[in-house]
């Protein structure tokens, strides 16, 4: 497997998307059970639609977060470290949605001996609506530099170079 290095990526590049769905109630129940989250808006259609005024039962926000995390971690590879990630909850997703987790490199910071790559990320449905926009910071090794340490301690990052 080729190690992704700080020098290999460019601002403006899109990272490979991750696709999920079409979402079903089984997906939601499987995640709710794994999370032990029994909020009825995720599985009780009558509660969700009649009492909460929602369009349907909702895909869990934490599930959507994991999909985006999976996207970023897959892109970072075994040599990189997904350091920070931020999400906003701006839209709902329901059964029937097909979801695309996407990302684009928006900045690079030389923090010698490592590099930090900033990504704009999100999760779009089949209509192109992005209900979970956010950003991520990924630490990558530099070519011929030391491996990103495990466990990762941000104190290993040098000051930001111009």
């Amino acid at each position: 497997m080729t190690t992704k290095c700080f020098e290999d990526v460019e601002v403006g590049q899109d990272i490979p998307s991750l696709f999920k769905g079409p979402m079903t109630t089984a997906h939601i129940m499987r995640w709710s059970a794994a999370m032990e989250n029994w909020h009825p808006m995720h599985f009780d259609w009558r509660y969700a639609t009649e009492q909460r005024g929602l369009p349907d039962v909702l895909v869990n926000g934490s599930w959507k977060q994991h999909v985006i995390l999976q996207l970023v971690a897959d892109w970072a590879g075994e040599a990189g470290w997904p350091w920070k990630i931020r999400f906003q909850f701006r839209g709902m997703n329901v059964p029937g949605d097909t979801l695309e987790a996407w990302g684009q490199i928006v900045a690079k910071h030389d923090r010698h001996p490592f590099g930090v790559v900033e990504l704009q990320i999100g999760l779009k449905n089949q209509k192109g609506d992005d209900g979970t926009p956010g950003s991520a910071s990924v630490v990558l090794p530099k070519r011929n530099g030391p491996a990103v340490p495990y466990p990762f301690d941000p104190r290993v990052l040098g000051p930001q170079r111009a």
Partner: protein
Amino acid sequence: MTEFSQAEMERQLDALIGPLGDPVSMAVELGAVRRMAVAVDDFDPIHYDEAAARGRGFRGTVAPWPLLWSWFFNCTEYHLDIEFGKATVHGQDEYEFHEPLIVGDVVTVATTITAARLKQGRTGPLGQVEAERRFTNQHGQLCAVLKTTLFRR
């Protein structure tokens, strides 16, 4: 419905700032880790197989990061004592990842309300509450920091 003055709403929000409940601990269980990874079709072997995880340099089988929310749903106090408004909505999460959660670990979460302020939203007063959860394992290592922004309207 009781109407609250701006001063009273601000007082309710100010009263939230500080520790929220006591630190609580929970074990990282193999079954929970596997169920979570399967639930999102994440078949990276580090979430299922200890030997595979150790081969990649981890201490053991690695939990998917959203397992952090299990502490939220199972053993932490998260009720916010706000009288104004009708609903609390989840606005934003921000994570920092440090030492992964490993099967067999006992992880403790400490929750603090770090900020609470009254803003003016499109439909009226909007309370913004920021919480920080710090997760540490039995070795005293910081595993993750989760910052959550909630809105009360």
